[in-house]
């Protein structure tokens, strides 16, 4: 029998606690869902989740494939990194393209240079149907955005992929309910309780490799809509996007990305942080939120994230 008076515990450090919670959530998904998938973009949050999945399931294989919904407007470095990481892990990577949805006519752009981020929802829902996934694991964090701050760790979506923020399932203790009927879907967010700072500290502690655009580098920049936009970015197929329009001036600046996403709506920040520990320091002293200065798709209206999530976005 355990001696009840015995006290030889040190409380877990904050990072250890967050890690343990995330592993627990990943294993609940594996235990409760019959066909889950891990959404993997090559970005910092999903790279943390890959490490967490290694800790959760090795020496076994992951009980889910990885999937990326590619807008076609992603940095080549990130795409290469994505493929390399999946190969190193020996896990299956599924890629589905927004451009294929455009060809099918299920995604219709208003203008050819409209950001495609929000259209990922359509392609995602098509892929969920194609593979019959009952749960998508995502790297969203509650500190990113005010609608996300409201979301459950296991978040229920109806058969149209819709989130109903006014009527979420109660989520008690760590007794997660990932049940769904056929056609419905669960979105699971293992790092819900992590902040941007926690992510960077975890990357530092675990010595995780990241795509180079997260670190300070020189890049041609134009100012557009009040934000710095990377200019003349060459895609894999040779197409060059974000070309300067008349009157826009190209300046070479030292920048890094705090989040990676569609090139047409993700802005970098000025920075000379060229390694992880410098980024940790910068994150501690920044006066701007992660998506604040960098995600133009969040800024179209006060509730654009909520709106996108209601329509099936992660």
């Amino acid at each position, binding site marked *: 029998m355990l001696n009840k008076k*015995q006290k030889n515990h040190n409380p877990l450090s904050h990072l250890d606690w967050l890690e343990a919670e995330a592993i*627990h959530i990943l294993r609940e998904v*594996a*235990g409760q869902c019959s066909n889950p998938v891990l959404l993997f973009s090559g970005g910092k949050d999903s790279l943390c989740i890959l490490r967490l999945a290694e800790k959760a399931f090795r020496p076994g294989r992951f009980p889910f494939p990885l999937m990326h919904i590619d807008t076609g407007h992603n940095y080549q470095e990130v795409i290469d990194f994505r493929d390399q990481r999946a190969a190193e892990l020996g896990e299956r990577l599924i890629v589905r393209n927004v451009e294929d949805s455009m060809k099918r006519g299920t995604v219709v752009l208003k203008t050819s240079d409209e950001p495609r981020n929000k259209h990922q929802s359509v392609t995602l829902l098509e892929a969920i149907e194609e593979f019959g996934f009952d749960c998508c694991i995502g790297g969203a964090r*509650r500190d990113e955005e005010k609608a996300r701050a409201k979301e459950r760790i296991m978040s229920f979506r109806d058969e149209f992929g819709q989130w109903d*923020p*006014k009527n979420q399932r*109660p989520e*008690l203790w760590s007794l997660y*309910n990932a049940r769904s009927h056929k056609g419905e879907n669960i979105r699971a967010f293992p790092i819900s309780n992590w902040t941007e700072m926690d992510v960077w500290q975890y990357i530092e502690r675990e010595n995780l490799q990241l795509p180079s655009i997260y670190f300070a580098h020189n890049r041609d920049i134009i100012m557009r809509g009040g934000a710095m936009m990377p200019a003349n970015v060459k895609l894999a197929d040779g197409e060059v996007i974000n070309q300067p329009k008349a009157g826009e001036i190209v300046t070479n600046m030292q920048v890094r990305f705090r989040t990676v996403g569609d090139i047409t709506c993700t802005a970098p920040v000025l920075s000379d942080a060229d390694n992880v520990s410098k980024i940790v320091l910068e994150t501690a002293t920044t006066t701007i939120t992660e998506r604040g200065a960098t995600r133009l798709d969040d800024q179209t209206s006060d509730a654009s994230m909520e709106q996108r999530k209601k329509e099936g976005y992660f």
Partner: protein
Amino acid sequence: MTCGSVDDGKSTLIGRLLFDTKTILADTLTQISNTSKKRGMEAVDLSLLTDGLQAEREQGITIDVAYRYFSTGTRKYIIADAPGHEQYTRNMVTAASTANLAIILIDARRGVLTQTRRHSYLAHLVGIQHIVVAVNKMDLMNYDQAVYDKICADYLVFAKEIGLAQARDIRFIPMSALNGDMLVDRLENMPWYTGETLLEMLEDAPAADEEQNAEFRFPVQFVCRPHASADADLHDFRGFMGRIESGDIAVGDAVTVLPNGYQSKVKAIQIGDAQLKSAQTEQSVTILLEDEIDTSRGDMIVKTGSKIEPVKQIEAFVCWLSETPMSPARTYVIRHTTRESKAKIASIAYKVDVNTLEQQPATELKMNDIARINFKLAQPLMVDSYTQNRAIGAFIVIDESTNNTVGAGMIV
């Protein structure tokens, strides 16, 4: 977490706390001050920091829990802003189930209300250890000490009746969330109050430790059998993956796997490829046993000799969370740790009236009702009482027709 009645100032308090601890970054502040202006307000409405949904902003109320994060240098905090409206009590219960400390707000003009009582009762029921009763909006009562003293006295009477005052650490504080009195800074309006500020109380409250002395409980979440792997060493690998819900474990310890009762010893403990000699509460680990034992998700590993047995009948307090009433004629699913069982209601002992604390007979449960219920189970569960061990004494009730979580249970 913050709780209390409608419009007591919970969201404003959190906003103020974030603002005064300099957690709010410039762009967020610009955003909410623009939104405040658009809504015709003179000052920045800090409740917009947590009331992030369109519907919440339109109505000026909180509907669902918002989670916010801040750190003080000494500590990192997760704050949950719960809604005060009775209709959204289930969301308050969601927030309460994981909280270590509850700030219960009371509007100084209105004193202790039904919803204050309900939230206090629920906070007590789910076992939140530390309670801070914050008498808010003191600015509207001329910062009058007599008002504060009266409310504290009223609250204590009620807290004693429900057993909260005896079992928990309760503190009182007067404040104005709008002005910022007694949150981070004391300001000059209430020199008669010499106790700690809210932030000081938070910094002083011990972190979650109540389960540290409980016995070892390890519900198996997932079994790792990489037999198909090319690596021959892994051919016989059989790892039991899960989180230690309470107690601790070391390599060499004798263990029993329930419900079957197989016995073995701990051969290894791992997190990823790191080998540990021992592990403790809240760690997610993989445990390897000396013997080949048939074990799967839903089983529980305990130390041999531990007093816990599979049972097919449980008695529990249940808080009903669904608009569809609980019907004793129906079969529900109970999820307890990593295990599920079909359950039938054997009897409802009584329902608790949160206002009078009277026990009333009941034949069904409506939303927000709290009752003591006997369940018959199809599958055995391994349970502790909730007061002894939160993780092993808690369960949720699921309605299979919708898959919704409809009840929260705490085993007596």
